[in-house]
Structures are given as structure tokens and as C-alpha cells.
């Protein structure tokens, strides 16, 4: 144990002597939280539309007015025909084109179905379906007005209506959804890179040989290497949670100690993985590329941006070995739903098993004697 303390002392000295370390620990999380939380959003505001009004009637102007007054839409141009309007889509200057047919008013007055063409730039599929849905809603609203106007005494104004209730995030605030996930990314990236660069740095400097001729034990070495980053990453999480509360006013319904407990186990997985990469690579460059390779896959598949449930079966299966997916799920449950341990105990046990396996691998792969 004394040996471990000497290693700890040395590691902490080195970490904090590095002039870039304090900015990395304090400024990077703030910037990442602020930028990612506001920009990594699927909320659609200011959809840019081009109107092609072939009817030039009272009714068609009413419909355009409906779009104008919606906060989701911004009319960027009016064109004479569809050909010209589609150029706007092509150049990326507009997201949607709305073409109002020539006999629009006539059809309405005759109680026939009037035609509107709605063209959406669907390169980003989920954004396109949202824009489409919003536009449909505006058109529905317009439709309802006409019905009221034409048949004021009918009580049967349509159809079934369901009253929606949104639980856990009642305002459908995207930031509320994103921040717990981004917090996970933050501690993961800090932990993975600090540990992933560490042993390989000693290899590059040549100091690892000096360590390997000492009677140090493998577990002492790995513990001494792991603990400092574990503490730094846990601190980072607390710091990030503080910002989430202060800046975004993200609700924290669950238990704070419970979250820290899960984070403690989760970080063991991440740090052990980092150390494993570090023991396997010979240069910092190698370690960097391997770390990024795994992190990018883990992050993209983690359910941070898109729900895991809507991924293909193989991806869902893959996420059983994706530590980031576990912690994002649990973190959202604790922070937003106030879940207690029994709500996610299975996930926690899986994560614990994972930690044990990774630690054993890391200790095992660190070799004092070369063949």
C-alpha cells in the first residue's frame, strides 16, 4: 500500500505540473457543456420556406399568413413557379417549398379538396419528418378555420382528440435530455485519454524500464496509475453537474450519492480500458488512434443522440458491451426520472462485471518482463 501512495504522489505531481492540465479539467467541460447542449439538438426552429402561390387568391394569402405567423417558419422567398423554387432547395437556401395549386380558392368554395404540394429537403431524415409534421399542423389549423367558417353550427368539428401528457421532461426541453448524456461523455473522454496516454508516455520517455527493474507489483502499478484519474474524473462529474444545475437548471430528481456510486464503477471500466490501450500501444500516436476508434463507435452508438430502441437489432446487441450506453441510460434515469437502484440494478451489475473483467485484463497485459 505504501508503494501505491508513492506512485499516487508522483502521478498527481505530474498531472498538475502539466500547464495544460488545469484548463483541460476546468475549461473544457464548461465549453463542451455549453456548446454541445445548445447545438446538438433536433428541435426545428426557423424552417426556411419558399412559397409558390399559383392561385393569388384571398384563401391562398390566408394560408401563407398562417405560415408567416408561426414561429417555426420563416418565409425566405416567394417564387412564380415550382421550377424556380426548387433551385432554392437545391442550393440549400431553403428547407421547404410550399406550392399552392391554381384552383385553390375555387376548390374550397366548391367544397372540393384543394391541393397543396409540400416539398421538404430530406437529407436529414428525422429533421425532415419534423418539418413536415409542423407544416401539416399549420395546414390543419387553416383547415379547421375554414370548417368553422363554412359550417359554424356543426358541433361535430372533427374527430377524436387525445390529451397529451409529457412525463419526466414536461416542456420537451431538448437541453434537459442532452445534458445528462453530455456529462457522461465529458468524464469518459477525460478518463479515457488521461489513462490511455499515461503508460505509453512512460514507454516513450523510457521511464517504464526504470520502473520495471524495481520490485513493484503489477497491481500496485495499475492502482497507482488508475486512482489519480479516477479521482479527477469523479471530480469532473461533480463539477459538470454543478454547471448543469447553475446554467441549465437541469432537474436532479434522484439520489446524488447513488449517481456517484454508479459513476465510480463506470469509471473503473473506462480507465481500465484506457490503461489497456496504453499497455498495448508503443507510442502515444498509436494510443491516440486506438482510443479515438473505440470512443467514436461507443459514443455514436450510445444513445446520446438517437434512441437505442430504434437502432437495428445488431446495434442493440452491440450496446451490451458499450459502457457509455449503460451510464447514459442510468444517468438519465437518476437525474430525470429519479429512479432508484432497483430500477436499474441489472444494468449496474453488468457494469460491475465489466469493470472486473477490464481491470483483470489491464493488470494482466501490463508486462514487466518482455519475451
Amino acid at each position, binding site marked *: 500500500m*505504501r508503494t501505491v501512495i508513492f506512485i499516487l504522489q*508522483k502521478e498527481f*505531481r505530474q498531472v498538475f*505540473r502539466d500547464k495544460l492540465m488545469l484548463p483541460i479539467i476546468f475549461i473544457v467541460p464548461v465549453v463542451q457543456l455549453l456548446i454541445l447542449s445548445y447545438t446538438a439538438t433536433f428541435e426545428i426552429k426557423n424552417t426556411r420556406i419558399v412559397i409558390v402561390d399559383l392561385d393569388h387568391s384571398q384563401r391562398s394569402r390566408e394560408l401563407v399568413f398562417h405560415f408567416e405567423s408561426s414561429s417555426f417558419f420563416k418565409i425566405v422567398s416567394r417564387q412564380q413557379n415550382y421550377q424556380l423554387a426548387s433551385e432554392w432547395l437545391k442550393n440549400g437556401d431553403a428547407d421547404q417549398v410550399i406550392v399552392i395549386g391554381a384552383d385553390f380558392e375555387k376548390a374550397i368554395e366548391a367544397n372540393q379538396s384543394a391541393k397543396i404540394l409540400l416539398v421538404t429537403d430530406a437529407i436529414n431524415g428525422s429533421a425532415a419528418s419534423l418539418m413536415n409534421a409542423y407544416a401539416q399542423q399549420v395546414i390543419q389549423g387553416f383547415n379547421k378555420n375554414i370548417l368553422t367558417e363554412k359550417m359554424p353550427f356543426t358541433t361535430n368539428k372533427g374527430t377524436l382528440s387525445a390529451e397529451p401528457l409529457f412525463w419526466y421532461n414536461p416542456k420537451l426541453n431538448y437541453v434537459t435530455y442532452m445534458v445528462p448524456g453530455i456529462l457522461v461523455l465529458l468524464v469518459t473522454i477525460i478518463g479515457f485519454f488521461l489513462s490511455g496516454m499515461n503508460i505509453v508516455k512512460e514507454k516513450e520517455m*523510457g521511464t517504464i*524500464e*526504470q520502473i520495471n527493474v524495481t520490485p513493484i507489483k503489477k497491481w500496485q502499478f495499475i492502482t497507482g496509475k488508475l486512482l489519480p484519474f479516477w479521482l479527477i474524473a469523479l471530480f469532473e462529474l461533480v463539477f459538470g453537474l454543478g454547471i448543469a444545475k447553475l446554467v441549465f437548471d437541469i432537474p436532479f430528481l434522484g439520489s446524488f450519492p447513488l449517481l456517484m456510486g454508479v459513476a465510480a464503477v463506470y469509471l473503473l471500466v473506462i480507465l481500465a480500458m484506457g490503461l489497456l490501450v496504453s499497455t498495448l500501444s508503443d507510442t502515444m500516436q498509436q494510443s491516440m488512434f486506438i482510443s479515438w476508434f473505440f470512443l467514436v463507435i461507443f459514443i455514436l452508438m450510445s444513445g446520446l443522440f438517437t434512441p437505442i430502441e430504434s437502432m437495428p437489432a445488431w446495434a442493440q446487441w452491440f450496446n451490451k458491451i458499450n459502457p457509455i450506453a449503460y451510464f447514459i441510460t442510468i444517468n438519465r434515469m437518476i437525474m430525470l426520472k429519479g429512479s432508484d437502484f432497483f430500477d436499474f440494478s441489472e444494468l449496474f451489475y453488468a457494469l460491475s462485471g465489466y469493470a472486473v473483467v477490464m481491470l483483470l485484463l489491464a493488470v494482466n497485459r501490463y508486462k*514487466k*518482463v*518482455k519475451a
Partner: protein
Amino acid sequence: MKPVIEVENLVKKFGNFVANDSLTFSVFPGEIFGFLGANGAGKTTTIKILCGLSSPTSGKVSVAGFDVYRQSEQIKRNIGYMSQKFSLYEDLSINENFQFYGGIYGLSRKEIRERTKTLLSRLDFLKAQNEVLRNIPQGWKQKLAFSVAVMHQPKVVFLDEPTGGVDPITRRQFWELIYEQAHNGTTIFVTTHYMDEAEYCGRVSIMVDGRIEALDSPKVLKNQFAVNSMNEVFVKLARATK
């Protein structure tokens, strides 16, 4: 006297390449043993095996009475090592480096303080103890690395080209350190390719292409080859095998 290093038919192969070809030699306590050879002769390979950094392909090797195959951790308690590549932490101060290595070898904080003080005052370097290593000239760094290697009072110290890239005056001072350490009973196992340094050794072995071609005191070797310096002995041996 019982040898402190015993090597019998040591072979180390990397694939088909034979780096050490059945070496046999013994080193006795308190001896300064020079392990000479041209670049690539296999010196560093042997030193790494003796230190337990690399495992031999075959042969019998024991250091400080322990077997390298089964007792490499006990060996490590009893040896010091200074590698070719400078291996103290550049971003730590002298004191912090001593503290770290002393700690790993299980010295108490008090012992670490005392020995750091003794070793640094021997170098007349006590005033610089809080200096970060990055800012210290190369020659001094080598002397510090040597001091760290003997801090835990090992039975044997392995020095792999300890004076590489160092000016002649510092090299002399370095050898004075080595003598002092040997005088206190520590066995010194040193590789070098400065032949003037070979003259300082009690016995030398000269390695050519993975084999030991000569092993004796510098005086005997010079007589044997009928030359005046170790340099000529070395050149003759190296030429003979070409």
C-alpha cells in the same frame, strides 16, 4: 568467493537472430566488471536479461543468488539499473525523483530523506535539489540517475553505457563515483564503448557478434594480444572476426 552473477550457456534469440550466443561468465562481489562490445554486439540484451527485463531463450542465469526464471522479483530488490536512455522523470524535481524511486523500493520517508541528502552532497548538488530535471545539464542528469540507481543499496548495479554523450571531465567524475561505490562493496556491471574506460575495470569481457571473445583483466588482455591499450585489443578482436 561466491559469484554474485553467474551465467552459463546463456542464449537469447529474436526469431532467427542470435543476440547472445551461449555466454558463460561470473562476476564477483565488489568487482567492477566491464562488458565491452561494438554497437549491436548484444550487450544491452544481456543486461536486460540480468535485470529481469527480458527473459532468456535458454541457459542458466542467477543474480544475487536468485534464479532469473523463477525469482526475478527477488533479483529486482537486490539490483540497481541505469539504462542507456535517461530515465528519471523530466517533469519532477531531483528530490521528487529520489522520493519516488526510494518509495518504490520500500525505503521509509526518513531513509529517503537521509540518503537523498548523502547522495546529493556527494555530488555537491544539494543546492539544486528542488530544480526540475528538465533544466539540468546532461552530465549532471547521468550522475543523478546513477545515484538513484544505488539509492536502495543494491548488491549489483547495472550501468548500460552510463557515460554516453558526456564530456571527458564529467566522465572522470562519473568513474570516481563508480569506484567509490565499488569500494563500499557494490558490484558494478558496466557496458561502454569508450576503451579508456575499459582500463578502469577490474576485469573486462569483450563481446563480438553475440559471443564473448575475451575475458580477463585489462593487463592480461593487453599482454595476451601484445599491445599497449585496450583500444588495440578491441580493434584486433573485432577485425579477427570480420
